[in-house]
C-alpha cells in the first residue's frame, strides 16, 4: 500500500513539475511586453478570476503587493454589482482562466474595454473567447492534470501560480527592488521591525563616536578610526559642530596620489559637509539615504549641526548578516 501511495505521489509531482517546465518555452516576448506594460503603468494591476483561478489570483495579488507592484483582486461577480468602479483607465487588468470560457469573467470584457484598461489573460487556451479578446495573452496551458476524473485542477493551478511568481519576480528585477522597499511592504517582518525604529534608538553615542578635532594630523585621525573600528571618524570644530568626515575610502583615494598622509592635516583628506540625519529619523529613511548615496556611515546631528551620534549600516541591518548593493 505504502509503495502505491508513494508511486502516485511521485507521479503527481512529476506531472506538476513537467507542467511548469513546459511553460519555460512558452514565455516569449508577450511576457516581456506585459512586464514593460506594468512597469510603465501609472495604475494598478487588477487580478480577476473565479473558483480555483480566483484563489490563485488572490495569491498573485499578495505577491505583487509585497514586492512593490500595487495590486488588487476583483471578484468577477462583485465587479458586475458595483466593484467595477474600483477599476481606472490606467490600470492593467489580468484575468485568470484555464478554459478562457468562464461566463462571469467573459461578461466583464466589454466593461473593461469600455473603461479603457489593457486586458491581459493568463489562459490555458489561446484560442478561447477570453484570449481572443485580450490585448496580451500569456499561455499557461499544461499537457496533463494529475487528479483522477478531473475532480480538481492540479498541474494547471500550479502553472498559473508559477507564472504569477514569474511576473512578480521579473518586476522586482525591473524595479531594482531594494531592502528598504521590502520594509515598506513587510512592516511585520524581521527586517521590517529593525527598520521601523528611530535612529536615536540604534545609533552609537558618547565615547563610541569616533571623533577628531579640526586641524589635527591624519596620524591622529587614523588612530581614532582604528580605535573604534568603524571605518570612519567625524571631524568637529571647537563647538562640537560637524565639519567633515574621514572614511577609509577617503584615505585610500588620497594614498593613490600621495603616500605622505601622516603629516597632512585632516582638512586635506576629509569630505566636507557630509550627509547627516537628525536623531528622530526612521531607520528606514536612514537606510534609504545610505542606499541612495552609497554610504555606510551616517553622522547623526541636531538642527545646530552638533553631533549626537553615528550610525553604521550594520546597526540597521543587524549583526552585519544582511548584505545588499555590494556597499
Amino acid at each position, binding site marked *: 500500500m505504502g509503495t502505491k501511495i508513494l508511486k502516485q505521489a511521485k*507521479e503527481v509531482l*512529476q*506531472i506538476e513539475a*513537467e507542467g511548469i*517546465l*513546459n511553460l*519555460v*518555452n*512558452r514565455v516569449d516576448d508577450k511576457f516581456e511586453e506585459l512586464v514593460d506594460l506594468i512597469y510603465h503603468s501609472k495604475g494598478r494591476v487588477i487580478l480577476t478570476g*473565479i*473558483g*480555483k*483561478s480566483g484563489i490563485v489570483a488572490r495569491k498573485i495579488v499578495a505577491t505583487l503587493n509585497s514586492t512593490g507592484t500595487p495590486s488588487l483582486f476583483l471578484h468577477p461577480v462583485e465587479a458586475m454589482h458595483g466593484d467595477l468602479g474600483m477599476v481606472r483607465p490606467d490600470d492593467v487588468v489580468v484575468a485568470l*482562466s*484555464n*478554459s478562457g*470560457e*468562464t*461566463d462571469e469573467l467573459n461578461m466583464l470584457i466589454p466593461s473593461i474595454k469600455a473603461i479603457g484598461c489593457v486586458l491581459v489573460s493568463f489562459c*490555458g487556451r*489561446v*484560442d478561447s473567447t477570453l484570449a481572443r479578446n485580450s490585448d496580451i495573452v500569456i*499561455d499557461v*496551458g*499544461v*499537457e*496533463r*492534470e*494529475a*487528479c*483522477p*476524473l*478531473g*475532480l*480538481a*485542477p492540479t498541474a*494547471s493551478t500550479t502553472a498559473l501560480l508559477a507564472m504569477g511568481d514569474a511576473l512578480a519576480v521579473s518586476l522586482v528585477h525591473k524595479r531594482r527592488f531594494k531592502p528598504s522597499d521590502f520594509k515598506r511592504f513587510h512592516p511585520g517582518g524581521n527586517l521590517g521591525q529593525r527598520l521601523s525604529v528611530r535612529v536615536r534608538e540604534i545609533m552609537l553615542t558618547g565615547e563610541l563616536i569616533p571623533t577628531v578635532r579640526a586641524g589635527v594630523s591624519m596620524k591622529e585621525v587614523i588612530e581614532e578610526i582604528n580605535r573604534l573600528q568603524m571605518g570612519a571618524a567625524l571631524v568637529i570644530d571647537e563647538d562640537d559642530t560637524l565639519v567633515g568626515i574621514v572614511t577609509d575610502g577617503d584615505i585610500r583615494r588620497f594614498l593613490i596620489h600621495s603616500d605622505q598622509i601622516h603629516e597632512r592635516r585632516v582638512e586635506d583628506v576629509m569630505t566636507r559637509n557630509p550627509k547627516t540625519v537628525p536623531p528622530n529619523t526612521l531607520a528606514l529613511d536612514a537606510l534609504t539615504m545610505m542606499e541612495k548615496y552609497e554610504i555606510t556611515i551616517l553622522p547623526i546631528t541636531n538642527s545646530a549641526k552638533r553631533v549626537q551620534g553615528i550610525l553604521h549600516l550594520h546597526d540597521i541591518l543587524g549583526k552585519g548578516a544582511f548584505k545588499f548593493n555590494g556597499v
Partner: protein
Amino acid sequence: MGSDTKEYRPPKGLICPIITPLTDKKLLDEASLEKLIRHVEPYIDAILLGDISFGEVLFLNSRTREDLIARGFEIIDGRLPILVTITDETAEKTNKNMYRFESIIERSGYTGEIFWVDYPIYYHSNRKLPQFYRELSENTKIPFIIGNDPRLIKNNKIPVRHKNIRTSIMKNLANLESIKGLIFSGTLNRALNYQKGLRDRKDFRFYDGNEGTFLKRPSSSGVVAGGANLLPEAWRKITYSSLNLYDVQREYRDYVRHIWRTGSMLQAIYDLYGKNPGVVMKYILYLAGLIPNSVTASGESVGPDEERTIKAVIKEYEIV
C-alpha cells in the same frame, strides 16, 4: 506536406473510435454504423473511423475498409472532424491505403475536417521514420495524427525491435508541419519525455490513447475513448469535466459525487474491454441493443466466463 494541405486545427476533447459493425457475412453493416454514429454524435468532438483496436481494421478486407470510409463520411456529412486510420501491415500497404482513401474522399466532395491516423511502429522501425513521413506528406493534402501504442506491437506477427517511437524520433516528427498530434498509450515516463520533446510545438495535440490513463490523469488535449461507443454521454461528462476543471464544478450541485460515480462506472466498464477492446466492446454493444450481433472481423468471441462477468457488470450499472 502536399502543396494544398488543409490547415485544420486538430480537435480537442472526446474522440470516439467507432466500432465496425458487421453482417453475418463480415461485410459492413451500414444501417448499424449509421445508428451507432447517431448514438454517439451529439456527445463527441471527433470520430475515428477504422481504429486498429475498436474498428478491427487490420482484420477487415479492403472492400469493407473502403465501404466504412465512404459510408462513414456520408453519415457524418461534415458535422464532426473525422480521423481515418491508414495503418496496415507494411509501409507500402499503408501508403497505398492513404492514396485509396484520399481518392474516395475526393470523389465524395467532402469538405469537413479530416486527419489521417497512423501507428508507424506497427510496420516501420524508428530508423528513417521522419524521412518516411516527409515523403508521405508530400503526397497528401490531409494532415496526420500519429499513434504510439506498445500494446498493438505486442500482438504484431512481424517481429519489431522497438515497441515505441523513440523520444528523439518523436521530436523530429514534431518538426514536420503535417503532423498535428499524437495518440499516446504507454508509460507516464514516456509521456513526459515525449512532452519534453514536443515543447516547441504549441499547437501539437497530445491525446490519451489509453482510456484508463485519461481517467487517472487526463491529458489536456483529450482522449480517444472506445467506451464512448457504449456510453457517449458519460464519457462526454468526464472529458468535459477534465478539460474544463475550473469552470465545471459550479454546474453540478453535488459535482464530486456525480463525477466520481460516473468515472467509477467508466473505469469498471473499461476494465472489461481494456485487454481485448474490439471483441468485448462489440459484445457489450450487442447486449445493449445498439448493434444486432457481435460478429467480429477476426472471428474471435468472448468466452463463457467473460460473458458472465460482462453481464454482471453491465447489470450492476443498469446499462442493459
